[in-house]
């Protein structure tokens, strides 16, 4: 009897001890305002991002005594789950990250997120690169303010190109030729981790863009166009053509993006189509040898002869943005924090973290790696930036799209079926 009782009693005491500390904490805090802030950059994996976030938080708190920020960093997959659960219980944190367009839609429709237009009208007027805020707008109001802007070039390994004796292709036909020569030299032409199907989606999107023109895809998604148009079928067919030619790394449908990237980083693959968020890997990340980093450059996705797309048209767009919860009880403070964060982030993003913010960047004053200068210049003269398909689409349709990409690459559907099933997905 005694042993069991002791255990139970001790446990209960312990549990009550826990609640006690909760209460005493609460009493002190009622004097100050607390902003609950959830973000995507845990210290373990995104060390520099995390550090800059902490600096910004500290700066804000010291300029605003009486406000405390409670930051909670969570990794990508869990973040999405957390958003889903919290929003269904209408318990979102005061400030958080969100993706644009399709992802954002359910939250706006559910009334979980507050409009941020007053910030745009006043303090942050003209701060953003044109086109970035639009992705976060719905029914005339702005529900998120972007923090990142990315475009996706084809990174390539100069040493491998030299070894095979090939030049950077400017047309798609030349590109196919490059692939052939690389194969003859036993070099994997392209690495892609299509288990994370958004990577394969980048390839498809560029082909769709080059064949059908910049607005084709966006129109198809927002239903003013159709997926069954010829250019989309051609793009799909071209993907399978590339697969037939062994252009892609072995087992791509079972490789994660990280695994695929490893093939590029260890010099096994010559080309890697990926977003500019990976720039640090090829510029500042000491974990990769200086020799390797010096051997990487990028080129724009080549144009197709007779296609409607031009070389300055990119796939990319705003990454995550900040939102404010509609039912936040510290809304004014939250809005102030958002404005502060965007400004400070804009100042530090390129130099300290190595990513491009969505706010305008003055390259003259910054001392940065030349690849950044090149990307920023390309960004400035971009004719069009098409937002990632799986972000534009609503989550349910995006899921179907990603499945179809895997099926397309895996030769399980015909290009015609691929196009047709996309149409059907929208019903």
């Amino acid at each position, binding site marked *: 009897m005694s042993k069991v009782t002791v255990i139970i009693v001790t446990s209960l005491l312990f549990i009550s001890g826990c609640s006690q500390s909760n209460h005493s904490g609460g009493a002190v805090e009622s004097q100050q305002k607390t902003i609950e802030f959830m973000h995507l950059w845990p210290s373990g994996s995104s060390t520099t991002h995390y550090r800059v976030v902490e600096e910004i938080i500290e700066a804000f708190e010291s300029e605003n005594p009486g406000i405390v920020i409670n930051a909670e960093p969570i990794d990508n997959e869990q973040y999405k789950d957390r958003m889903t659960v919290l929003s269904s219980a*209408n318990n979102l944190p005061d400030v958080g990250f969100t993706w644009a367009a399709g992802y954002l839609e359910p939250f706006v429709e559910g009334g979980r997120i507050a409009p941020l237009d007053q910030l745009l009208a006043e303090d942050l007027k003209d701060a953003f690169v044109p086109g970035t805020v639009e992705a976060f707008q719905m029914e005339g109001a702005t529900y998120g303010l972007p923090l990142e802007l990315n475009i996706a070039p084809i990174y390539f390994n100069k040493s491998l190109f030299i070894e095979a004796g090939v030049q950077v292709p400017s047309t798609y036909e030349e590109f196919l030729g490059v692939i052939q020569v690389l194969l003859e030299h036993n070099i994997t032409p392209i690495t892609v981790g299509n288990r994370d199907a958004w990577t394969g989606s980048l390839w498809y999107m560029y082909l769709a863009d080059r064949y059908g023109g910049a607005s084709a895809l966006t129109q198809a998604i927002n239903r003013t166009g159709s997926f069954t148009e010829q250019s989309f079928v051609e793009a799909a067919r071209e993907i399978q053509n590339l697969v037939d030619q062994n252009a892609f790394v072995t087992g791509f449908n*079972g490789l994660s993006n990280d695994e695929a990237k490893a093939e590029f980083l260890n010099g096994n693959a010559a080309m890697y189509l990926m977003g500019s968020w990976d720039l640090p890997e090829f510029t500042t990340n000491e974990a990769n040898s200086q020799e390797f980093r010096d051997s990487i450059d990028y080129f724009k996705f080549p144009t197709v002869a007779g296609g409607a797309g031009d070389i300055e048209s990119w796939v990319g767009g705003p990454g995550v943005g900040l939102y404010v919860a509609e039912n936040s009880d510290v809304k004014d403070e939250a809005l102030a924090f958002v404005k502060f964060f965007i400004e400070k982030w804009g100042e530090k993003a390129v130099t300290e973290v190595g990513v491009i913010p969505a706010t305008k960047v003055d390259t003259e004053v910054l001392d940065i790696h030349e690849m950044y200068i090149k990307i920023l210049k390309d960004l400035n003269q971009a004719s069009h930036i098409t937002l990632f398909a799986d972000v534009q689409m609503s989550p349910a349709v995006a*899921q179907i799209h990603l499945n179809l990409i895997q099926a397309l690459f895996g030769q399980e559907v015909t290009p015609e079926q691929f196009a047709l099933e996309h149409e059907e997905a929208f019903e």
Partner: protein
Amino acid sequence: MNEVLASRKAIIFYIIPALLLVVLFMYIPLILTGYYGLMEWNGMGEMIFTGLDHYRRLIGDPLFWDSAKHSLMLGLFSTLALVAYLIVSLILSQKMKGANLLRKIYLIPMLLSSVAIAQLWLRIYHPTNGIFNTFLIYLGVENPPTWLADPNLVLYALFVPIIWQYAGFYILIYYTALKNISVDVLEAASMDGANVWQTAWKIKVPMIMDIIKVTVILAVVGSLKYFDLIFVMTGGGPNGASEVLASYMYRTAFRSFDFGYGSALAFALLLVCLITTVVVRKITTLKGV
């Protein structure tokens, strides 16, 4: 004596804690889930009553049937694996040196979290420098299979780590049960001239039959609700080739924001488990054990 053992007060006292917890935190949410399955709901907005629409959709949904098929296949393989576990446990339960150590070693995979196991097997199955394919290439095979990318192989490829993960668990259960068979019975058997095989199959196994039945149910039901490794290793892909019921439900609710249909799937999962258990029970009783 019967009075003592039938005391109402005592009975209630002994069953209340467990019963209360399970009803409150498992059954009631389950009923709510079934209820949500009758609604069109994205988790945030209003719930719109749609009656049995979702359930009707389910019946016509090829993805549902594919996932169900995959889950059942996993259940079948897990049950077959039980035979192997039983044999190993029978061997271990003899008086042999090192049985103790071996048993502990076998349990190690279960101590690892699914993240660790997923990562390990992802590396093993890597198309070019994973252990299997490196070995195959060494043997001269030109294009070794891409285990996780090939829709025909991926499901089987996933079975291996799952079965490996649970080996120690079932071996532990069987071993404990076997060790608990009274020594007298065994001595009597050997004195009657029974050899090792006969003792094992005619005496030990029947004596732990109840436990075996329990493990069959555990294996089948566990497989039906299995989620972890599949979700982390392939995400149900490529294109649904390795999707199981639990991952399909999860993705529908949490990623596509379709809680109505997701809940219907969750409820259907429960029904599948129930039906399977009844069937399994019937089969094991028919066998005459």
